[in-house]
C-alpha cells in the first residue's frame, strides 16, 4: 500500500476542478493511455491571469491528486507566476508523494508548460521541439530529464525513473540516463567550483593514475556491470590509455558493448581524469 499523505487522499477522493472548460484558450495534453497515465489541462486566461483551470486525468490516486493540486495552485495567478511553479511545489502542496510516484507531479508541470505554450500560440512539435526521445517506452525526452534533474536535484538513475518513468520498462536506456545524469552532475560541479581561478588540477603521476583507475574499476564500474551479469577486467594502463576486457550479458547486441565501453570511459573520466581513453581488448 502506498503511503499517501492525508492531503493526497482528500484530493483523490474529492478532486477539485474536474472537467472540461468549453471555451478554454489554453489546453495542454500529456501522457497516454498506454503509458498508464495521462492528463489534459484546460485554462481560461484573461489579461494575463489564469481565471479558471480544469483537468481530466487517467491515472492513479497520486495523478488525480497532483492534477487537482495544480489547478488549485494556478487559479488566480498571473501567467508569469504560474510559470515559476515547479513539480517540487506541487509535491509540497500535497505534503509529499511516495518516491515512485514523483512522475505524477512532473506530469502536472509538463501539462502546464504545454498549456501555456498553446496559449502563446506556439505549436509544440511534439518531439523535435522538446529535445530527443531517450526512453522509447514512455516517450521521455532528454530535455525533460535534464530539467527534472536540475529542479529536483536528482542524484541517481533510480531517481530519474521515479520522477519521469524513463528507464522503468525495458531498461535499455539506462546507460543513456547514466550519461545524462553524469553530464548534469558535472555541470553542477563546475558551477559550484570557483570559475574565476580556473586553476587546473595538478596532473596525476603514473602510479597515482593507475591506482585511481584500479579503484574506480573495482569500486564503481564492476558493481554496475555485475548488476546486469557483466564484468570487467583491467589489463593495462599506458599513459592515459586504459586497456580493459569487457563481458556483457547480451552477447548478441554489438550496441550494448559500445555503450558498455562508453560507460566505463565516462566513469573513469569522472573519477580519474577527464581525458582518459578506454580501449577494449
Amino acid at each position, binding site marked *: 500500500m502506498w503511503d499517501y499523505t492525508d492531503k493526497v487522499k482528500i484530493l483523490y477522493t474529492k478532486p477539485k476542478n474536474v472537467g*472540461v472548460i468549453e471555451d478554454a484558450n489554453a489546453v495542454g495534453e500529456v501522457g497516454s*493511455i498506454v503509458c498508464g497515465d495521462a492528463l489534459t489541462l484546460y485554462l481560461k486566461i484573461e489579461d494575463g491571469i489564469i481565471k479558471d483551470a480544469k483537468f481530466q*486525468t487517467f491515472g492513479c490516486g497520486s495523478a488525480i491528486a497532483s492534477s487537482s493540486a495544480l489547478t488549485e495552485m494556478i487559479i488566480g495567478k498571473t501567467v508569469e507566476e504560474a510559470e515559476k511553479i515547479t513539480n517540487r511545489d506541487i509535491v509540497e502542496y500535497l505534503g509529499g508523494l511516495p518516491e515512485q510516484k514523483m512522475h505524477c507531479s512532473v506530469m502536472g508541470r509538463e501539462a502546464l508548460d504545454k498549456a501555456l505554450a498553446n496559449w502563446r500560440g506556439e505549436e509544440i512539435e511534439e518531439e523535435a521541439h522538446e529535445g530527443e526521445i531517450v526512453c522509447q517506452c514512455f516517450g521521455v525526452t532528454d530535455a525533460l530529464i535534464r530539467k527534472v534533474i536540475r529542479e529536483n536535484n536528482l542524484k541517481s538513475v533510480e531517481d530519474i*525513473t521515479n520522477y519521469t518513468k524513463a528507464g522503468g520498462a525495458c531498461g535499455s536506456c539506462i546507460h543513456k540516463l547514466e550519461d545524462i545524469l553524469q553530464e548534469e552532475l558535472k555541470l553542477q560541479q563546475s558551477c559550484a567550483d570557483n570559475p574565476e581561478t580556473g586553476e587546473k588540477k595538478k596532473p596525476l603521476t603514473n602510479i597515482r593514475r593507475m591506482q585511481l583507475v584500479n579503484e574506480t574499476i573495482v569500486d564503481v564500474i564492476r558493481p554496475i556491470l555485475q548488476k546486469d551479469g557483466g564484468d570487467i577486467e583491467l589489463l593495462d594502463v599506458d599513459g592515459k590509455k586504459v586497456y580493459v576486457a569487457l563481458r556483457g550479458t547480451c552477447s548478441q547486441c554489438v550496441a550494448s558493448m559500445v555503450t558498455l565501453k562508453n560507460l566505463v570511459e565516462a566513469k573513469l573520466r569522472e573519477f580519474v581524469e577527464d581525458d582518459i581513453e578506454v580501449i577494449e581488448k
Partner: protein
Amino acid sequence: MNKKTVYLDNNATTMVAPEVVEAMLPFYTERYGNPSSMHDFGGRVEKDIEWARHEVAQLLGAEHDYEIVFTSCGTEGDNFAISGVLSYFPNKRHIITTRVEHPAVLNLCKQYEREGYRVTYIPVDRQGNLDLDMLFDSVSEDTAIVSVMHANNETGVIHPVEKIGAFLRERGVLFHIDGVQAAGKIPINVANIPCDLYTISGHKFHAPKGVGALYIRRGTRIRPILYGGHQERGRRPGTENVAGIVGMGKAAELARKFLPEEERVKKLRDKLENEILARFPNVSLNGAKEQRVPNTTNVGFEYIEGEAILLYLNEMGIAASSGSACSSGSLEPSHVLRAMGVPFTSAHGSIRFSLSRYNTEEEIDYTLKVLPEVVDRLLEISPYWDNERKCGREIKV
C-alpha cells in the same frame, strides 16, 4: 475505518480460520517444547506435527505422509523444488516454465539464466491457456525440470497439469507444480497428476502466513537447499514452526471438509462477474471463463486506471487488487496480462476480485452497488471517456 471490510483479495492472502487459531494457540503458550527433544515435553509436540503432515498429505492425495515437507512459504517451496532438482542434476542445463508464473518461479529462473542455464518460457494465448505444443516440443535431453503453476494467481486460469505431467513422465523429465493458488479451491490428487513436486502455501487457504509445504513424490531426486539439522529428514532443516505447521494441518482438514462450499463461492463469483460484464460498456474479462478456480475473476476496465479504482473501492471498505502498473510499484502492467496480450488500455484498468468461503451474498451485492459509483466517478475524470463519447475522437495512444 469503522465499517467491516469486504475482503475480496483472497488470492493475496486469506483470513486465518478461527478453528486454525484455536488449534495453534497452545503451541504459543504451554506447549512450547522442541519436537526434537528427548523429553516428553518436547517429544509430544512431534505427534502434532505428524498429525498435521497427515492432514496435508490427505489434502493433496499423497500416498505417504513423509512425502510432505514443511517449508516457510510458497516461495520457499518453489525455490526448493527447482533449485533442489537442478543441484541434483548439475549436467542438465535447461529449465522449462511459463511466462505467467509467480515471481517466486520467474525470478529464480531469471537468476539461473544469468548463471548460464537455458530457460524456455512457454507463452499463453489471449485466454491465458498455455501453448502445450511448444511446451512438448521444448523438452530435450538437457531438460532438468519443468515448472508450471496449477492455477494462475491473477486470472485463476487452471493449466492442464495432468496432460503435461503424463507427457513428461513418459519422457522421464521431472515436473514441479506451483499449486499455491489451487490448494483449497479445487480438488487436488497427486495420485492422478503425474508430477514429482507440488508446492502449496498455508496463508492462501486460511492457515497463517509463514508456513508452506512441498510434496516430494517418493523417490524423487532432489537435494536440500538448506543444510543443518535432521528436521524433516534433513530435507528441510531448522527447528519447526510448530504452531504454523499445526495451523496448516488444521486448515488442510477444513479445506477438505469445505471443498463442497466452493460451489457456493463460485455462484457468488459468477454473480459478481456476470453483473459487472453486463453493467459496464467499457469492461472485459481477462482469462478463460471455464477452466478457472471458482473464486477468482479478473476484469479490465477501459479508460480508467486500476489503482484509482482500488483506492476508491478502499474508501468504500472493499479490498481488491489490480494488475495496473501504478498499483504494483513498477511502471508496467502485470506480466501475466501482458503475456496474454491484454491491450494496455484495459490492463491498466484491471481489477481482480478473489473470494473465499467467508464471503457472503450481501457483500457481493454491496460491491455491485458501489462499483458503478466508483467507475462513473473515474470516467468523469478520465480524458478518454469524454473523447470517445462526445467527440468520437480517436484515442491517442
